[in-house]
């Protein structure tokens, strides 16, 4: 079908040299969309034709408009319905709806009032009940005429219309124009192979720039991928996996066996999930329990003990294990019972803490634990093993900090150097189990047990860049994340972790902070704009500035703001205790004269000005909005300019069109870059201002086409650099700025 049309179209093109889809649709009395379809299919054939898309706006009458074109405007219909003797309103309306059944009451109302205001009809109250009469003998219904024009294609009016955008193609023959079309095949088919027709067919080229179809596939969870990697590392190092499939544990194995005293804070209900059902454990090995009780309450095995009354009831309380070390304790006890042999154990499994939840803490998480039991192990051994273990994770730099843990002595917190954060971060805990834990189990006296633990979630969050643990674990996880997650290769640093040259990172950080501030400012301005003048929210601004570098432009802008008198303003000026010497009265009172008489709560705009030794870059902060500080004189000036615009509706900065705003920004940026590049003399910038003002057109302001228009750039630069300018034109400009 499309091809048949296509050939017709191509013939037309051959004869006429060009074609327009709309015209063809009229000519062939064919739906325009069909013609467009044909054009598109021809375009797919390569360079047979060239086509250009045009959008034209077409005016079309609405239903109401059509009525008016047919029957006259509402007022004319009312006029025409009034008999020479006049009539009452309901009668007229009834009369009007005879020629035009769809003439509604609302239209009639419009018709009456319009006809009255045009002086076509009048009310006659002389005969009691008010009657409408024709006031003029004839009328000219301009509205109807215009609409009739439109309906026939003359575009003279804009009201009463609906617009319709019509897209059409303008076509001409392409470089490989031909009037006969062979359809290109999209793909090879079994029939073509069987019949051999593929030899003569043309095949459509693939678009190799598009993405392929996603492959249906399943995925493993990222946390489990990291778990697999850790598991692999332990196995490579000869560690045997412990059976940790017992979430419910007794206090005995979770705490008492580990020489954790019964009053220890970790055994508080605030930190541990205890069980209501099954509430207690039984079958704790009696003689072992007796030894544990003794070592807690009286000591032994070379220990002083904790000297308290150990209670079996406390040990029997069931809980959800708070660490997998409970399993390690069971394993070591079993090891002692069966005749000790050196062992290396590991586990990675869930543990539970009754903690307050936040972005990095959940009530359950995975603990990774490694244990080595052998004769004569040393702290040096533990350090050595930890280096090897973490090296397999791609972490080379380690450092150990003394720490306290009830069941290990010595205890060490493991820190690694984080190149991204540029600091040492804690990555795990380690130590040698206390003799008070091991000896009651029946392990030989010269056996030491090294152990270390870390969480699985934390390295995973760091590896894949998660801020919130709920994005990683739990039912709220976005499964698309699981699908998109890359392989876990802990010893490879790629993707997000790739090291950039430092200057790039610094640029990034600067860019980020600028973008954050911009977003903050944008939010503020949007808020202010939305509020309008009538319903402004109170705004409190704190500006900190250094008395050695008074931000003159900011002060000028505040004076202008206050002088605009559109909002009640109060300004309070403080000096910060960090100042070495007190501020002069001038500094402390610079804005006093313009302060309104209202007290703070009534003011819509409260400004707190603090003189503080913060150097040449003043800072502004909008109180009660969590955006960061706005730093630097230019940035603060921009903020104030926006405030001024939102309060007075004048064009000063962003109320100008985009180009003008950009020009203003350029001038402010030039000033900023002078500051940053250490050109404190501003020679270049001053020259530019002079040149601009001295240009042949003799402009009045820096911005806009001749003679320019006053803006933030003028106020800002004249206050800051006025004293450096001495051409006559510049002096005139300065006085203009001052009177602004």
């Amino acid at each position: 079908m499309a091809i048949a049309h296509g050939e017709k179209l191509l013939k037309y093109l051959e004869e006429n040299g060009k074609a327009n889809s709309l015209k063809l649709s009229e000519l062939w009395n064919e739906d325009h969309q069909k013609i467009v379809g044909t054009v598109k299919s021809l375009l797919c054939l390569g360079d047979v034709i060239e086509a250009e898309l045009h959008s034209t706006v077409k005016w079309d009458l609405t239903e109401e408009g059509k009525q008016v074109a047919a029957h006259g405007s509402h007022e004319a219909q009312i006029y025409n319905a009034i008999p020479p003797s006049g009539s009452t309103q309901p009668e007229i309306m009834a009369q009007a709806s005879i020629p035009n059944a769809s003439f509604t009451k609302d239209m009639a109302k419009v018709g009456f009032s319009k006809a009255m205001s045009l002086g076509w009809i009048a009310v006659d109250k002389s005969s009691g009940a008010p009657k409408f009469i024709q006031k003029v003998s004839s009328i000219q219904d301009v509205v109807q005429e215009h609409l009739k024009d439109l309906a026939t294609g003359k575009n003279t009016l804009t009201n009463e219309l609906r617009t319709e955008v019509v897209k059409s193609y303008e076509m001409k023959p392409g470089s490989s124009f031909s009037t006969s079309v062979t359809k290109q095949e999209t793909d090879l088919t079994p029939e073509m192979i069987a019949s051999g027709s593929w030899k003569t067919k043309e095949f459509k080229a693939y678009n190799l720039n598009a993405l392929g179809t996603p492959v249906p596939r399943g995925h493993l969870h990222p946390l489990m991928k990291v778990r697999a990697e850790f598991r692999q590392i332990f196995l490579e190092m000869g560690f045997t996996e412990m059976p940790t499939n017992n979430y419910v544990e007794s206090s005995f194995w979770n705490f008492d066996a580990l020489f954790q005293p019964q009053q220890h804070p970790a055994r508080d209900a605030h930190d541990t999930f205890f069980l209501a059902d099954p509430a207690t454990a039984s079958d704790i090995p009696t003689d072992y329990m007796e030894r544990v009780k003794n070592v807690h309450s009286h000591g032994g095995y070379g220990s002083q003990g904790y000297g308290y009354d150990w209670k079996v009831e406390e040990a029997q309380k069931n809980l959800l294990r708070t660490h997998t070390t409970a399993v390690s304790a069971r394993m070591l006890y079993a090891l002692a019972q069966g005749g000790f042999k050196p062992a290396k154990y590991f586990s990675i499994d869930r543990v539970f803490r009754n903690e307050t939840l936040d972005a990095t803490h959940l009530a359950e998480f995975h603990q990774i634990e490694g244990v080595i039991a052998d004769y004569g192990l040393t702290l040096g051994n533990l350090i050595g093993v930890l280096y090897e273990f973490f090296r397999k994770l791609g972490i080379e730099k380690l450092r150990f900090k003394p720490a306290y843990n009830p069941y290990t002595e010595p205890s060490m917190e493991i820190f690694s150097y984080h190149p991204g954060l540029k600091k040492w971060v804690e990555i795990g805990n380690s130590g040698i189990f206390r003799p008070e834990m091991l000896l009651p189990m029946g392990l030989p006296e010269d056996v030491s047990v090294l152990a270390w633990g870390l969480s699985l979630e934390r390295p995973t969050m760091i590896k894949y860049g998660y801020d919130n643990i709920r994005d990683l674990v739990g039912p709220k996880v976005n499964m698309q994340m699981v699908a998109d997650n890359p392989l876990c290769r802990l010893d490879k640093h790629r993707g997000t972790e790739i090291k950039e040259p430092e200057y790039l990172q610094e640029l990034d950080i600067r860019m980020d902070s600028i973008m954050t501030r911009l977003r903050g400012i944008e939010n503020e301005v949007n808020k202010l704009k939305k509020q309008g003048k009538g319903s402004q929210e109170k705004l409190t601004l704190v500006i900190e500035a250094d008395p050695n570098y008074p931000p003159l432009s900011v002060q000028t802008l505040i004076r202008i703001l206050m002088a605009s008198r559109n909002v009640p303003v109060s300004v309070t000026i403080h000096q910060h205790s960090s100042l070495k010497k007190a501020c002069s009265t001038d500094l402390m009172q610079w804005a006093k004269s313009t302060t309104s008489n209202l007290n703070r709560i009534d003011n819509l705009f409260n400004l707190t000005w603090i003189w503080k030794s913060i150097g040449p870059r003043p800072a502004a902060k909008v109180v009660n909005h969590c955006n960061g500080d706005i730093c630097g004189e230019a940035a603060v000036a921009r903020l104030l300019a926006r405030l001024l615009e939102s309060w007075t509706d004048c064009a000063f900065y962003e109320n100008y069109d985009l180009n003008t705003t950009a020009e203003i920004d350029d001038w402010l940026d030039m000033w900023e870059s002078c500051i940053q590049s250490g050109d404190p003399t501003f020679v270049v910038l001053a020259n530019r201002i002079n040149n601009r003002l001295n240009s042949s057109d003799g402009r009045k302001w820096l911005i806009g086409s001749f003679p320019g228009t006053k803006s933030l750039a003028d106020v800002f630069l004249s206050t800051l650099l006025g004293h450096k300018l001495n051409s006559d034109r510049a002096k005139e400009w300065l006085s203009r700025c001052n009177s602004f």
Partner: protein
Amino acid sequence: MPTISINRDLLFNALGKSYSEEEFDELCFKFGIELDEVTSDKLIILKEQGTERSVGASEEIIYKIDIPANRYDLLCLEGLVQGLQVFLGETEFPPFKLIPSQKVPQRLIVKSSTSSIRPYAVAAVLRNICFDQHTFNSFIDLQDKLHQNLCRKRSLVAIGTHDLDTVQGPFYYEALPPDSIKFQPLNQTKEFTASKLMDLYATDSHLRHYLPIIKDSPVYPVIKDSNGVVLSMPPIINGEHSKITLNTKNVFIECTATDLTKASIVLDTLVCMFSRYCQDQFTVEICEIETPQGGIKNYPILKTRQEKIDVNKINKMVGINEEADKVADLLTRMCLTATVAENGCLSVTIPPTRHDIIHACDVYEDVAIAFGYNNIEKTLPSTNTIASQFPLNKLTDQLREQLAQAGFTEALTFSLCSKEDISDKLRKPLSSIPAVHVSNPKTLEFQVARSTLLPGLLKTIAANRKLPLPLKFFEVSDVVLKDNQRDVGARNCRKLCIVYYNKSPGFELVHGLLDRLMQLLEIPLDPTGTTGYSLKSCDDATFFPGRCAHVVFEGVTVGVLGVLHPEVVTSFDLNLPCSALELNVEPFL
């Protein structure tokens, strides 16, 4: 881990040396404490109350330092400075001395009535002490830190300090009915009965936390002097009468307790830290405690212990090779004054400030710290072992791989959930489920350990409804079931669960995946249900009637599959058909 706030300038002044922040951080790290935060009153107020309130607040730098939970001797400026100076070798650890009273010793008589509520009391006197504002504040702060940590929020031990010159011994510690105790408590202007005090402090942000320790007891503990003046009502509040001030010269310290060992440690710690401000430095005056049985015991104990420690063992445990005298030096720097004794042993003096040293291994650790953890040579243990995997985990991982290869995506959901999740929402009565119940959940989400993986997966679907259909998720993980065959009365059970969520139920897909799993496990289909696996139609409230079957393996039901009941679907905020399979993995090991 307790955190103490120390004024930096006072600290450096006491240390006799200034450090840069990095230097001090480094020193802390080596010593085993942590410079947690550098702040000031002003910054704290700024953070908590905003810019305006902070104007005028002090900008003196405050160091917040984390102290290990067993080092009670470092919880105040005095102790920290002493510890660091000895560590740096700049000063020697002082000898503490008990001295008898010059007249009659102060006596605290413990009545038997206290046995039901708070049976122990100990006491000591610091004579001719001289406070200034800073040391006075530090004295109060240390009591607070001890109360919060070692004293377990006053439940184990409560400290009272009094101006000895305002009261007259001997003192009586007894327990009386609340209405018969009446006194003017600290910082109040009139007298209250003990019962009234409980009402008064019920809204006190600080004290209300301690009320439950005695509130429901028929008798409350109280200490009075020989004239009946109330010194304190432990563990709640002291009396106004005996309040200590900057001008107090003689301090009477009493500690009441439910744990005598801890009371003695608290008393030792307090007197050791502040006896330095006595005219006769580092001396403490003995008090007599008369027990209900009539015996007399002297406090504080202030015991200095001598231990013989084998240098060879130290070297072996730490993994270093140091001469005895060098090791002795290392220990001396940790406030454990040591001298070389015969037979390769050290004689180590454990002062009354180091109650954390309860075993030789604690001494080994201090050697290692003084030597420097990061100076110890890294070595690898020669332990030679053959690794093996936990068989259930190995099988689990193999099955997970296969499920992912079959196009299902792994979810990871919580082991804890609400009662509703495993019962009502699955259309089953809670009583029929052998679930493990948590006694102290902070929220509804932690009421029970899950007995099935299904709710977690359905919640995962609910959170991912915007993804293109079909949604195909799985989880292989543990559920927890009550089991009285186990010592703890419960066991884990490894389950495999898959869900298929689409516009049509897709029962056949889930069924097909079960067949595939069985094929992988080399288990044949056997409709007779005795050797291989088979499906047996069943009724299960969670599933749509007639669309549900048990998976039977060697005659035993090991799982269930079917189309979920529409009410189950909607109770998880879903609106499309969903098929599920849940299988016990353990029988296939």
